[in-house]
């Protein structure tokens, strides 16, 4: 560094710092870059596309049911592989940063812990959007090859799958703020499964006699997200109408849940001492 450059440093020609939303966007885009450079993601998406493709073979042996089988398996593949990506990549996003100490390079920069966490969340949501988009195109391509007319109804089911995944990512992020990526994955998986049975939890007290069980199931029912709200796959494949109001209601439900989970995540992460 020469003397002129030195004076430049001493004079401190510094930028004002990026605006808050832009900082979140930078972290999100870097997170997206992180996930798309992860070979695991490609394997998962490839496997999902193979699953969608294999529905063609299954459809061929199902007389008059081939289109239904393709739609069923296609939507299930998008949902299951999206879930796997959301849980296994989502829960590792924060805990991996803590374990590998990459956070040590980030947090002393002018970015708050909440901004970092929100960036991570939106980055993975962006990754999922692209992945769900690719899988959707794979499904529609297969239907096109089967000379099936464009079925816009599927998009409603896929939109709800995406909302479900966005919610699941927030669940994974919450767990990863206070535990290891393995445990966070297990917990998020449990919430996902339990979330599909939360309405059964509500009814559990009517079939099991217990003094305290109704209170436990009551708390769990209202605490766990009800993932069944996002499941219209069977209805769409059967050609039953899915009202727009249901999409609006599910969107609001997901947005509120995600907001609460992210607020809790930011609060926990903001208080956490790093290793």
């Amino acid at each position, binding site marked *: 560094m020469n003397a002129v*450059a030195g004076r430049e440093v001493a004079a401190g020609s510094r930028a004002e710092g990026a605006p808050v939303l832009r900082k979140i966007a930078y972290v999100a885009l870097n997170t997206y870059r992180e996930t798309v450079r992860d070979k695991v993601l490609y394997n998962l998406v490839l496997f999902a596309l193979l699953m969608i493709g294999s529905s063609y073979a299954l459809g061929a042996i199902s007389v008059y049911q081939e289109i239904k089988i393709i739609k069923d398996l296609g939507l299930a593949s998008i949902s299951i592989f999206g879930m796997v990506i959301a849980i296994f990549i989502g829960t590792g996003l924060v805990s991996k940063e803590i374990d590998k100490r990459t956070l*040590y*390079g980030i947090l002393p920069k*002018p970015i*708050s812990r909440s901004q970092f966490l929100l960036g991570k969340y939106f980055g993975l949501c962006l990754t999922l959007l692209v992945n769900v988009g690719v899988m959707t195109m794979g499904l529609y391509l297969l239907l096109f090859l089967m000379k099936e007319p464009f079925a816009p109804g599927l998009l409603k089911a896929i939109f709800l799958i995406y909302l479900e995944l966005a919610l699941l990512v927030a669940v994974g992020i919450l767990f990863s703020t206070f535990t290891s990526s393995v445990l966070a994955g297990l917990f998020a998986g449990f919430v996902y499964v339990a979330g599909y049975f939360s309405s059964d939890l509500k009814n559990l007290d009517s079939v099991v006699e217990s003094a305290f069980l109704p209170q436990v199931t009551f708390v769990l029912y209202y605490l766990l997200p009800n993932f069944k709200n996002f499941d219209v796959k069977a209805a769409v494949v059967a050609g039953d109408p899915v009202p727009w109001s249901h999409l609006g209601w599910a969107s609001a439900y997901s947005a509120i849940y995600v907001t609460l989970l992210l607020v809790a995540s930011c609060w926990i992460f903001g208080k956490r001492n790093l290793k």
Partner: protein
Amino acid sequence: MHAIETRGLTKDYVVGSFVRKKKRALDALDLEVEGGEIFGLIGPNGAGKTTTLKLLMGLIFPSEGEARILGMPLDDPEMKQQIGYLPEQPYFYDYLTGRELLDYFGQLFGLSREERSRRSGELLEKVGMSDAADVPLRKYSKGMSQRIGIAQALVNRPRLVFLDEPMSGLDPLGRREMSLLIRELRETGVTVFFCSHILSDVEQLCDRVAILNRGRLVESGRLSGIIDLSLRSLEVVVEGLTPDIQSRIGGSLLLSRPLGASSHLSFRDREECDRTLRLLLENGVRLVSLNPVKETLEDYFIRQVNAGGTE
């Protein structure tokens, strides 16, 4: 305004799985670092150096006490805008290249695209990483990671730089370059605060030091005020010293021991050394080397740590 100021900064960790106990990692640290100086924080393993840095960087939170950097609280984004930090054994996103990492961090500082591009190029050249700029970080050696670590710490042209073991992983040439870089930073008005185990580096570079042991501040101040820089002895190595000659000059030698074909002599004062050396040379002894010995930071450090250990 001090560049860094801590008052009673304390950190307790809870240890143990079943019986949970508090372990004090840092005990009421009072420290003041002036702007424009190179300040070294030294101490043995577990002394609390990295804990201090982590507290200052907001990676962990104090149990008691407070600290201010550039007169601002530790969570102030305006303060973070003006500092740089090199973590110990830095590990960055291994899916990024060196250039992408600098660009990403530059974004967080609000630098424009042109400024980021220019600054990345300058820094990569400065740390000798221009050739590896577009190689993914996962392929970097330890020394290369250290170099890119120092580059990212300077991306925002900081007023104050924190370096945790900056020489770690560097080869002798790299260490020399790092020393030059640290000196250049001071010349340009940047305050440098660094932790190191390598006491000779601290001794050569630092204007002031603080010594930590078992979480407590043992000493803080200018090196000249901490260690005795007066002459302690003169170490002489000669060849051709026979027992016959040695018996003739007798008791004036403080210490004499063979060193291969040579002999190692030690004198307490300069006059004694001059007189004896004259005698030796007159008797055909050849002078190999003569070194004045002063107290080093290492001597002082070991003495303080040992004293702390026997408390």
